[in-house]
């Protein structure tokens, strides 16, 4: 809508919806039904949504795509892209409704949202959700959608190189509706875990531990890649992975600072904590690897950065810069150990370390949030955490959060995978796996 046409329509400028944005910042002093919308918050939240979308496409796609063998790079990109398309539609049809709108039955509301927002029917132009009172509900719905997209898409790291594309899409759809939506509701949508006091600013448990747990189950169910251990499976093009990791880093400001839902002090502190923890984790992994394996690999540096981003996710908005620094360093070192040594020891084939980085990093972050949260950083949680403010009870809330997400997710993911395997089969044939997914599943190859 161009303003010119507004005037054409003979309306006073103030009457236009666009103008309400202007009024929003000012109408307090005026009379009448005030418009709750703040233009600055809205600007930031649309930007944040675009940033989080960029994390998945192309960010995550490239991060993973660079790590697989060349014959599978397009199939890996197709997973991120396909998940984005599919989940967007499902979120609009039903996901938002069951995750972020209240269930009329207060008891049920502990477990799942309502069903009245199917196809977003009740969402009008000027609707505002009570969960985000200064921006249009359309923006809040979109912002949450981008979280709902990236969470399942993260799982792709564990199933790389061997899953059917059809099975993958079914898995994304069922997992979104049966795992992500309920858990998002539990923690953020008014459900029992949020009520129980769990602190999860931007998704340490809801997003990362959740996706990581599903990744662990998936790689156990799928089994190892053919040739693991004998064939050279080193990343075919880490340039792509570096681009991906960088875009994840940049986009993550939408994720964490966007979770403030406003453009104010909380967003600023969350952004600062995110940057510090990420850098510290990249250094942590790099130094650990340099000492142990004698060379600082590029893959290690970017993996460390992602581990830092993951671990600070639940804590950003609750911790101060020093807390962020400690969480970051810990995440770099712990995830290095989990992705490299623990995986080797147990022998599961978490191909691109979705569990090792997101699962472990998410759990670590959730627990360290309980240690380092500071009442002075977030006035809504004035009690703070254990080590900072002596509030040990927060640790219990955090462990409960981690445990609940892990157990529920693991069980339901397992059931979903077994069901899909029964009906259409999860894994490609060995010939397809050896020749490559790109040509067999999508009929295309990279001709470089």
């Amino acid at each position: 809508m161009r303003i010119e046409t507004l005037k054409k329509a003979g309306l006073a400028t103030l009457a236009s919806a666009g103008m309400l944005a202007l009024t929003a910042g000012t109408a307090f002093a005026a009379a009448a039904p005030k418009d709750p919308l703040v233009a600055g918050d809205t600007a930031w939240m649309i930007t944040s949504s675009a940033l989080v979308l960029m994390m998945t496409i192309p960010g995550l796609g490239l991060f993973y795509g660079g790590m697989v063998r060349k014959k599978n790079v397009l199939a890996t990109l197709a997973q991120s892209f396909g998940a984005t398309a599919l989940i967007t539609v499902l979120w609009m049809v039903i996901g938002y409704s069951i995750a972020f709108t209240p269930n009329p039955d207060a008891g049920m509301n502990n477990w799942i949202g309502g069903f009245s927002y199917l196809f977003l029917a009740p969402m009008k132009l000027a609707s505002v959700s009570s969960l985000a009172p200064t921006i249009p509900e359309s923006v809040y719905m979109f912002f949450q959608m981008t979280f709902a997209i990236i969470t399942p898409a993260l799982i792709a790291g564990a199933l790389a190189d061997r899953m059917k594309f059809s099975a993958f899409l079914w898995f994304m759809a069922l997992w979104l509706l049966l795992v992500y939506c309920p858990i998002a509701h539990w923690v953020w949508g008014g459900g029992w875990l949020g009520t129980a006091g769990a602190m999860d600013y931007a998704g340490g448990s809801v997003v990362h531990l959740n996706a990581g747990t599903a990744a662990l189950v998936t790689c156990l169910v799928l089994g190892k890649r053919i040739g693991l251990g004998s064939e050279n499976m080193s990343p075919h093009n880490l340039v792509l992975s570096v681009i991906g990791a960088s875009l994840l880093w940049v986009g993550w400001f939408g994720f964490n600072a966007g979770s403030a839902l406003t453009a104010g002090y909380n967003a600023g502190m969350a952004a600062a904590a995110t940057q510090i923890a990420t850098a510290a984790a990249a250094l942590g992994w790099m130094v650990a690897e340099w000492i142990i394996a004698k060379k600082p690999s590029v893959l290690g540096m970017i993996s460390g950065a992602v581990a830092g981003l993951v671990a600070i996710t639940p804590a950003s908005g609750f911790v101060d810069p020093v807390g962020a620094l400690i969480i970051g360093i810990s995440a770099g070192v712990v995830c290095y150990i989990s992705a490299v040594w623990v995986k080797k020891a147990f022998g599961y084939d978490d191909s691109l370390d979705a569990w090792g980085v997101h699962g472990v990093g998410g759990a670590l972050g959730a627990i360290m949030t309980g240690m380092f949260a500071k009442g002075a950083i977030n006035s809504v949680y004035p009690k703070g955490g254990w080590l900072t403010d002596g509030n040990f009870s927060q640790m219990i809330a955090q462990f409960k959060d981690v445990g609940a997400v892990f157990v529920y997710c693991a069980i339901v993911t397992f059931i979903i995978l077994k069901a899909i395997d029964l009906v259409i089969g999860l894994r490609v044939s060995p010939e397809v796996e050896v020749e490559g997914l790109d040509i067999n599943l999508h009929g295309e190859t990279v001709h470089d």
Partner: protein
Amino acid sequence: MKLITAIIKPFKLDEVRESLSALGVQGMTVTEVKGYGRQKGHTEIYRGAEYAVSFLPKLKIEVAVKSEMLDAVVDAITSKAKTGQIGDGKIFVTPLEQVVRIRTGETDGDAL
């Protein structure tokens, strides 16, 4: 006529090419190959997994020459491609029965 096939270290290409030109060799064909031999490869790190890369990048040069040029060309390659380090490569000589220049249809000596 003989077909001389030499496996050399990649960064020696320019020196070899120049010395052959100096001998009057007017053409050659080069292929990127991977060599396996006494020279050890390296390992690549992948989040703790180490993959042994036992094949090393080499260049294969093919030069067709008249038989009387053979020794001069082999000597030139040997001296220019040599670093004295392991992995310098090999020269193979095979008989060549016929040569045709596609553009003109000239054959054998004239085609070189």
